[in-house]
């Protein structure tokens, strides 16, 4: 015999099982709100879902005053605390909520991802909108809380690097109600003051603390600002929407100050270096021209008429010397030849012969007598001897054969 049960019996059995399970009597479930309906009876019906599934929920009117502090909407991340029980009429189990709270981190994370995707789609993170951060600024705008580490860090780093940069602080509310509007107003106020760069940021904190920098109003203010903005929110690991929209992201407020404010001692060094280079190039130029001038002068001197005259004069002197030398040589040669001739002549001189006993006989006309035929008896003859002349008269001639 089979056991046959009524629907009511089965539902009742299951309901009993649920009620005996302590966990199901009080638990907190997290998920996203969907199909949310505020019924005219005052009860609220909704579905809690996540990626894997869904569960029906109800909050009765009587629990609303104590258990729900906000207007619940689809898409919200919530934490629902209550009981899971069976609703016999439908044969369904559902959550009977006693308390519903927004799920801070989960909700914010969802919201962050959604806004990020939306703004990215609008092109607000596009590189083409990023303004370059000017290197040498005169005024730095800062949007942050006027108390706390961030403002101190920014002032300390800026002043150390360059005490001549004017810092203008917009004391903003950086967390809690109105924070996003305050930050946006700060950006606009500093833009009106026409500062050179703006740092927008705050020190570290929870995702809720940093939330203002994930709000669309701040993103828009940064995007619309004509002055370059450096976003510096929280610590290096924190990323906010304002980091994506800003012209530059700095990991911390101190780092933002390093990026925004140039080191004045380096600038002065640069100026000095440039002065040195200019001076050196000028000296190089002068030296080069001096050298060129010296070369040209040498060349010109070489080609000048004075040089030519001197050159020719020198050549003339050399020619004269050579001429003189040749002349003297020639004279010396001739003199030598003369001497030889003199010696030879000496040897031939009749005077010498006369000295050695020979005589020279000439007729009255001075003709040398060489043959007897030139003389007849009675002719006057002059006989030359070594120390004078003997006037004589020929007696006779007599022919002889000499050899």
């Amino acid at each position: 015999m089979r056991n046959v049960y009524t629907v009511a019996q089965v539902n009742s059995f299951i309901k009993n099982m649920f009620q005996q399970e302590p966990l199901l009597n009080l638990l907190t479930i997290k998920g996203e709100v969907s199909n949310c309906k505020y019924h005219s009876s005052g009860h609220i019906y909704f579905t809690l879902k996540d990626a894997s599934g869904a569960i029906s929920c109800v909050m009765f009117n009587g629990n609303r005053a104590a258990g729900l502090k906000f207007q619940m909407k689809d898409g919200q991340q919530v934490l629902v605390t209550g009981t899971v029980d069976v609703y016999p009429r439908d044969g369904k189990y559902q959550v009977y909520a006693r308390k519903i709270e927004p799920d801070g981190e989960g909700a914010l994370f969802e919201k962050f991802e959604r806004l990020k995707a939306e703004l990215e789609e609008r092109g607000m993170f596009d590189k083409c909108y990023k303004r370059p951060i000017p290197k040498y600024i005169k005024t730095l705008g800062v949007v942050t809380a006027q108390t706390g580490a961030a403002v101190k860090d920014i002032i300390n780093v800026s002043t150390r690097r360059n005490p001549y940069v004017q810092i203008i602080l917009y004391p903003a509310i950086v967390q809690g109600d109105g924070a996003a509007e305050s930050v946006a107003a700060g950006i606009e106020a500093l833009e009106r003051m026409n500062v050179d760069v703006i740092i927008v940021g705050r020190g570290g904190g929870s995702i809720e603390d940093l939330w203002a920098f994930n709000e669309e109003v701040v993103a828009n203010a940064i995007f619309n600002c004509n002055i370059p903005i450096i976003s510096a929110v929280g610590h290096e690991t924190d990323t906010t929407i304002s980091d994506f929209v800003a012209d530059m992201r700095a990991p911390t407020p101190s780092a933002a100050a390093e990026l925004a404010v140039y080191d004045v001692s380096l600038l002065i060094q640069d100026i000095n270096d440039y002065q040195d280079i200019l001076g050196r190039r000028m000296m190089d130029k002068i030296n080069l021209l001096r050298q060129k001038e010296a070369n040209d002068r040498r060349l010109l001197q070489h080609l000048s008429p004075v040089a030519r005259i001197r050159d020719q004069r020198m050549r003339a002197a050399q020619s004269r010397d050579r001429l003189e030398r040749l002349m003297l040589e020639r004279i010396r040669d001739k003199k030598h030849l003369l001497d030889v001739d003199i010696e030879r002549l000496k040897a031939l001189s009749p005077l010498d012969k006369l000295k050695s006993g020979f005589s020279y006989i000439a007729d009255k006309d001075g003709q040398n007598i060489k043959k007897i035929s030139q003389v007849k008896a009675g002719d006057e003859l002059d006989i030359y001897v070594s120390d004078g002349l003997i006037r004589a008269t020929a007696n006779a001639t007599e022919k002889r054969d000499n050899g």
Partner: protein
Amino acid sequence: MAKKIEDKELSIEGAFEQVNEKIKALENSDVSLEDSFKLFQEGMDLLKYCNESIDKVEKKVQKIIGDGQTEDFE
């Protein structure tokens, strides 16, 4: 006399850029001595301008207290 720096809004970067151009021109051996002196003087004037544009007065941090109004921030 070197040409005065006319552009009052000239940035320090812009001035450095111009100084670099002067230096490059000076390095060109075809430039006459007269032009070289001019380039040198213009370069020096630009650097003087850079130096003068550092307003060497230490600034007090200002805090915005109202519409365009500021006071010293302590």
